[in-house]
């Protein structure tokens, strides 16, 4: 019964693969398959909830899969072969639904690598573009490297005399590759812009958490909690700060969202780190707040990031580009998408009225209970967590205001014509937003259920406290909505008696005819902050100043490629290529050299045989 949802999804996948000749049928089968499998999943969860952490990690997939399916019905029109898309879409969803339910490691590893392969096919769906080769390759390498490390992790459990740290490090690296830990995240900003928007919505909303789930279920049981807590905390801090700083420096809308996924997974691992640290020093409030923080943040991130990526998909379909500096003024042409995108972005940067804040509040409280606990280790962890969380929150505000300002607000810059938004695309966004609003108000009631799920004893007092806090937070969000409507109403009816509002061009301090080129682009908004962080960002600028009295042309281009890829991975791969070039010299084509090598090797082996 448990694997029914995964089974249905897989069957639907295979079915739509078979009828990939007739696109329409494949689309219907695929969509129906996803929705059927998700309902089956929800039914199984309600009737016989599997215990432990896995239930939680199924939730994001169950939420996002149908939404992405509805969105992709309109998204892939005219892109590629719908049969293949729907087939592998359902197969990926099937693997993601099955993974949390598998307990032993070997089947888990097999389904894990299958998930990598199926999602790889989705990532390279519009294979026609030449620049898609590199992201697809990098994504496949990340999946395979993760798989190999996990194979090694499985193998190490059989070997005796293996140090605990090595065993732990390889497990962390294997799952960290999928979860996007600091140095292992380079595939995320490459794969997400390349993949179709609904796929990248599922990948960043649900698939990344499975990496973290893998760590919790398979790597941590044997290791002492303080070590796990500290590693996750430090990785989380570096990941979130690094992720968000790179996020606001990107020009491609989906790269901004990809880096913000890295930041959010950093925050989630910080929360889990606080939980383990709390557990190590048995500080109950920290455990409860840590658990609630990570659970809420996972769900909220899935909801809000899903909306953002679907919004980005709609923007791509409407304008054909994702470069923030080229777009603008989309709020007027695609109002619903624009508003949903803005709401979700505000929510994801942790600001109150939306559910993003609930998660962040819980993590802050976990940090603060660490600070107030008086244990030196916990205090420093709490200070670090709180400080990093606030800095990332502020930078997230910068990144998302750039994304919203650049794409949706103001006048359209280079891209002037844009298609109408199709209901298939913005209806899922509205549902996800609705769910996130419901999440805010349902938080106090779901909190005790979540804590009961984790089944650690003696947390009930702290849970009561948490419930009260959540109730307050939800009520103040409601208060914000009420106040806004109140002010709007009174402005609408009480104040304005007879004075009508006219409209005219923006008063630009006397400029007669302001044009779109005078507008502040996305990269201009963050230029000050980018200079502040330049030693970390290392932005690559290409400037040719205007020469001569009457300069004919001048251009300024800048891009901020991924730091760890430029300074760590690229040199490693270059070194390997260098070595292989030298090794290639041996196959020089001369028969004499070959026979000489053979005789020398033979003599060496004979001498070794005689000697040993």
């Amino acid at each position: 019964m448990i694997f029914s949802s995964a089974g249905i999804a897989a069957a639907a996948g295979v079915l739509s693969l078979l009828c990939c000749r007739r696109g329409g049928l494949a689309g219907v089968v695929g969509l129906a398959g996803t929705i059927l499998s998700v309902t089956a999943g929800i039914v199984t969860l309600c009737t016989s909830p599997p215990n432990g952490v896995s239930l939680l990690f199924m939730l994001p997939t169950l939420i996002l899969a149908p939404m992405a399916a509805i969105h992709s019905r309109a998204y892939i029109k005219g892109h590629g072969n719908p049969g293949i898309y729907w087939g592998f879409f359902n197969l990926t969803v099937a693997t993601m639904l099955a993974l949390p339910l598998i307990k032993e490691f070997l089947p888990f590893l097999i389904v894990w690598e299958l998930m990598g392969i199926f999602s790889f096919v989705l990532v390279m769906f519009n294979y026609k573009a030449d620049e898609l080769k590199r992201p697809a390759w990098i994504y496949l390498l990340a999946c395979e490297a993760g798989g190999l490390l996990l194979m090694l992790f499985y193998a190490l459990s059989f070997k005796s005399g293996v140090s605990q740290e090595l065993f732990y490090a390889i497990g962390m690296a294997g799952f960290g590759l999928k979860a996007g830990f600091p140095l292992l995240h380079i595939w995320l900003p490459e794969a997400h812009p390349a993949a179709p928007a609904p796929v990248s919505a599922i990948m960043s909303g649900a698939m990344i958490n499975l990496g973290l789930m893998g760590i919790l279920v398979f790597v941590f049981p044997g290791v002492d909690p303080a070590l796990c807590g500290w590693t996750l905390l430090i990785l989380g801090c570096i990941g979130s700060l690094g992720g968000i700083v790179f996020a606001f420096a990107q020009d491609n809308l989906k790269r901004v969202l990809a880096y913000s996924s890295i930041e959010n997974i950093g925050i989630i691992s910080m929360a889990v780190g606080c939980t383990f640290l709390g557990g190590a020093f048995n500080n109950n409030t920290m455990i409860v707040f840590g658990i609630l923080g990570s659970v809420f943040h996972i769900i909220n991130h899935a909801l809000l990031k899903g909306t953002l990526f679907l919004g980005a998909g709609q923007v791509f379909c409407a304008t054909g580009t994702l470069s923030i500096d080229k777009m603008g003024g989309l709020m007027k042409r695609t109002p619903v998408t624009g508003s949903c995108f803005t709401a979700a972005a505000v929510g994801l940067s942790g600001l109150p009225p939306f559910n993003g804040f609930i998660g962040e509040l819980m993590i802050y409280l976990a940090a603060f209970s660490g600070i107030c606990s008086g244990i030196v280790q916990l205090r420093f962890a709490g200070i670090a967590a709180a400080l990093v969380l606030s800095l990332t929150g502020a930078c997230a505000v910068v990144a998302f205001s750039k994304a919203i300002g650049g794409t949706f607000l103001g006048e359209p810059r280079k891209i002037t014509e844009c298609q109408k938004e199709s209901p298939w695309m913005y209806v899922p966004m509205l549902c996800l937003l609705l769910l996130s609003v419901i999440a805010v108000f349902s938080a106090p009631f779901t909190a005790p259920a979540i804590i009961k799920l984790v089944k650690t004893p003696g947390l009930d007092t702290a849970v009561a406290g948490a419930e009260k806090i959540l109730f307050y937070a939800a009520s103040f969000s409601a208060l914000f909505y009420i106040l806004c409507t109140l002010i709007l109403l009174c402005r609408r009816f009480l104040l304005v008696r007879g004075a009508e509002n006219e409209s005219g061009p923006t008063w630009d301090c006397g400029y007669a005819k302001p044009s779109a080129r005078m507008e502040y682009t996305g990269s201009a908004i963050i230029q000050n902050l980018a200079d502040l962080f330049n030693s970390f960002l290392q932005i690559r600028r290409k400037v040719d100043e205007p020469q001569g009295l009457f300069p004919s042309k001048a251009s300024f281009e800048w891009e901020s490629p991924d730091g760890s890829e430029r300074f760590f991975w690229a040199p490693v791969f270059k070194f390997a290529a260098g070595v292989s070039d030298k090794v290639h010299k041996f196959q020089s084509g001369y028969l004499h050299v070959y026979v000489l090598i053979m005789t020398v090797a033979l003599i060496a082996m004979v001498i070794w045989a005689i000697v040993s």
Partner: protein
Amino acid sequence: MMYWLLNLVLALLLAPVLFGVINKVKAFFAGRKGPRLMQTWYDIFKLLRKGSVYSTSSTWIFKFAPVGTLAALFIAMLFLPLGFCSSPLGFQGDALLFLYMLGLGRILTVLGALDTASSFEGMGAARELQFSVVSEGTMLLLLIFLAIQSSSCELNTMLCGRGNSFWMSAAPSMLLSAVALYVVLLTECCRVPVDDPETHLELTMIHEAMILDNSGPDLAFIHYGAGLKLWIFSAILTALVVPADLLSPWSALLVMTSGCFLTAVFVGITESMMARYRFLKVPQMLMGGFCVEFAALALLLISGGVK
């Protein structure tokens, strides 16, 4: 509870008057008579009666931004222990809700500014975002400082529940965090060293630039919001500095309001004595505020002035 409500009403009424006080102080230093104390109220009433002009390139965000900012600031107001009596609405963790409400107000203003597609508003928004990163960090360090002192996360206990002994036990760190809070106040309320409210040269504006295109009731809401924000920060400053456990409710009310007006006077003095910082020096000042607060925290931890 009753006294807190009284304080709240008082705050809502007197908030715009703070600007009047600042202008009066500046005028006094410049040998001028200066505008009336209630000038801001008159402006607000004038604006409320006017119709507003909306630019063709702006959307619903531009219309919603002032309203949202005002609502956010009002909610932020509710958690403060105005008049040194703890606010009934306070809960464990409201300090963070307070901090993030300010953040919400900031992002709504920024989005409203970007919506008008004007280069000056974009410039103001960009600068505002840059300063907000560092000032939010400093504010959080301050909250951590207070949390360590009062070992709780509720604004009421943090500000008022620390008892009188904290000045004796942690005087240097208290002083440092007051200075840091003052720097944050100057940045958040856009006073002189960071941004000059009276300037007419758009290139140098930050906060004023963001509200260039607002008119009518929106502008009124914004001015009133700015007043509220100034009142909030001065209230926190006074609560931080003044150990007011032994005061009776009425004297506490008096001390709080005079404290706020005193801060306004102090801001006026700094404005008349200092010119605006060069644009590149502002981040250094902010970083300075951040480090001061960090030093205060470190001092507190090392000196062990902790319960």
